[in-house]
């Protein structure tokens, strides 16, 4: 009978070890769905998850374990993290839940909102007060001295950071859709959520593929704000990349970063479509009213044929909305 007791103990020990093994695998999985879970086990079996080094804005950032106390300082960053199912690691976000994509809003239940004001960027104290180990930002300005603070300084106090790639150059380097994919993959590696990341990238790429393709390279004026003294987003901005991918031609390729343009050049270049990048204070209605009433541009093709398309300024920040934004733009370019 001693053999039975020993074998029971061995079986019990084996069970415990097996359970521990299984739960360890399951614990590293924060994705959704069983397929993801299986894939995760395969991944962790294939390579060591940590330490992970991520190249971000020409510097290396190393993570020795999945971040557990994450602050997101911008809405696009929050949306990325929520779309990757990382809501449980969030200890603070900037921006009211109501401004997020509707499908992501339920995930905000119980998440601490540091401040609802998204502009100007949140300050150092408010962020450090929640004791984060990672700050994920959607804008370069979030790391200014008057905002969260320099990334080197954050690292010195043990806070890691990540900035969406498309905003690293801040107008000097073109931002593209590939930067958004890279962000998702990077976050997937940082959080050991590679399957979720791959799924999100796949979803975005599917959206992009579903966008209709415009023929004839329609000329597009990217109209960002202003009336008699208008501004455009700039050829290095993400929205310019989206326009190009949708088959359009930016009428101001030489204006590289956000700047004011002269209506006379717009009249001369005669865009076929005007893409309005709307903001809270520059809604579509205001833009359309101005475009209709400003006589010097009455003869412009886009104005005559009333081909005005709009995307929100948040839709064209690097993030999960970019796929849908591209679809909207492409539909607008085709709709001629």
């Amino acid at each position, binding site marked *: 009978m001693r053999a039975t007791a020993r074998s029971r103990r061995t079986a019990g020990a084996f069970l415990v070890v097996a359970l521990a093994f299984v739960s360890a695998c399951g614990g590293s999985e924060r994705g959704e769905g069983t397929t993801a879970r299986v894939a995760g086990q395969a991944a962790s079996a294939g390579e060591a998850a940590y330490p992970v080094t991520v190249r971000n804005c020409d510097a290396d950032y190393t993570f020795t374990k999945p971040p557990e106390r994450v602050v997101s300082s911008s809405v696009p960053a929050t949306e990325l993290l929520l779309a990757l199912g990382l809501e449980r690691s969030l200890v603070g976000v900037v921006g009211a839940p109501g401004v997020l994509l509707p499908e992501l809003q339920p995930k905000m239940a119980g998440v601490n909102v540091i401040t609802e004001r*998204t*502009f*100007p960027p949140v300050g150092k104290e408010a962020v450090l007060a929640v004791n984060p180990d990672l700050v994920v930002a959607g804008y370069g*300005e979030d790391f200014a001295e008057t905002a969260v603070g320099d990334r080197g300084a954050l690292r010195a106090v043990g806070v890691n950071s990540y900035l969406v790639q498309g905003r690293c150059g801040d107008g000097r380097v073109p931002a593209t859709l590939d930067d958004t994919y890279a962000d998702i993959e990077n976050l997937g590696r940082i959080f050991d959520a590679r399957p979720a990341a791959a799924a999100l990238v796949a979803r975005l790429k599917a959206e992009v593929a579903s966008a209709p393709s415009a023929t004839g390279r329609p000329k597009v004026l990217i109209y*960002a*704000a*202003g*009336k*008699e*003294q*208008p*501004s455009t987003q700039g050829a290095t901005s993400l929205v310019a990349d989206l326009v190009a991918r949708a088959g359009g031609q930016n009428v*101001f390729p*030489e*204006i590289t970063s*956000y*700047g*004011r*343009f*002269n*209506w*006379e*050049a717009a*009249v*001369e270049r*005669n865009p076929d479509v005007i893409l309005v*990048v709307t*903001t*809270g*204070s*520059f*809604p579509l*209605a*205001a833009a359309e009213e*101005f475009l209709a*009433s*400003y*006589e*010097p541009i*009455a*003869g*412009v093709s886009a104005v005559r044929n009333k081909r005005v398309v709009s995307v929100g*300024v948040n839709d064209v920040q690097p993030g999960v909305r970019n796929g849908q934004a591209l679809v909207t733009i492409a539909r607008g370019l085709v709709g001629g």
Partner: protein
Amino acid sequence: MPLAPLLTGLAVALVASMVMAVGIGPVAIPFGEVWRTLLAELAGDGAGGPRAVIVTQIRFPRVLLAAVVGAGLAVSGVAVQALVRNPLADPYILGVSAGAAFGAIAVIVLGGAFGSLSIPVAAFAGALLTFLVVFLLARRGGRLSPLRLILVGVAMAALLNAATNFVVISSPDNAQLRSALFWLLGGVAGARFSWLVAPTLALVCVSGYLLAHARTLNCLSLGDETATTLGVDVDRFRRALVALVALLVGCVVAVSGAIGFVALMLPHAGRLLVGPNHRRLVPVAGLLGAVFLVWVDVGARMLIRPAELPIGVVTAALGAPFFLWLLGRREARA
């Protein structure tokens, strides 16, 4: 230099500058075509088309506005320097432009869905209200001393600038912040013909008044005491001057933002040419200001075409070295 030939020369230079400036823009149109088109459109039998639109509706009002704003700023600079008897003064010390800026920024940041006229109207309202407050606060015992006027004006400007900055910072997004900052730097891009009306009327009225009272302005430079002995009602004249300068500055800043240094620089350029006698200085400074701003505006639309450079940047780039030189020269003399 005798006055009549100089004025004629400057007037010719202004007309020539405006003619040339209408021909210069990010869209390259041959000069002959520019003027054929413009004259045809003005005569009513133009063919239309994008180039006609560019020349007549975009460039022509813009060049006109640049001339009016330049002249208006220079003339108000002359008046303010006589008013406070300080050659380093510019009309912004009255606080009026800070009031206009506050009105404009409030509309830009807080009320973007209004009609297109609301920015100039709000700016002018801000200028007017600020003028009234400064005027009432600067009077003491019924008298308006230059020192008190400057102090009150500077204090009001500081207060309004703080309020304006606060509103700017409250911008809900980066785009609006930039719109606000661009407005503050000033410019005449996108000028509409309707914007020309108020500043032109104000310029004509105020210049006329200053010319008629040139002798009185001259007497002020001898000091309040002496001016009084020459029969000048110093206090009443000062009150009228303050009101007129505020009116002109308000109209100008309402449509073009707070363009810096023109009001400070051009009166001095005028003095270097014809001396301080206001009978000569007022028209000369006005014409110089008009020519100057027409060309500065060409720079603003050409230097980084097709993007626009804020005109205040171009004038400041020229104005700052001039100001330092002027300071050095004044100190060398004193």
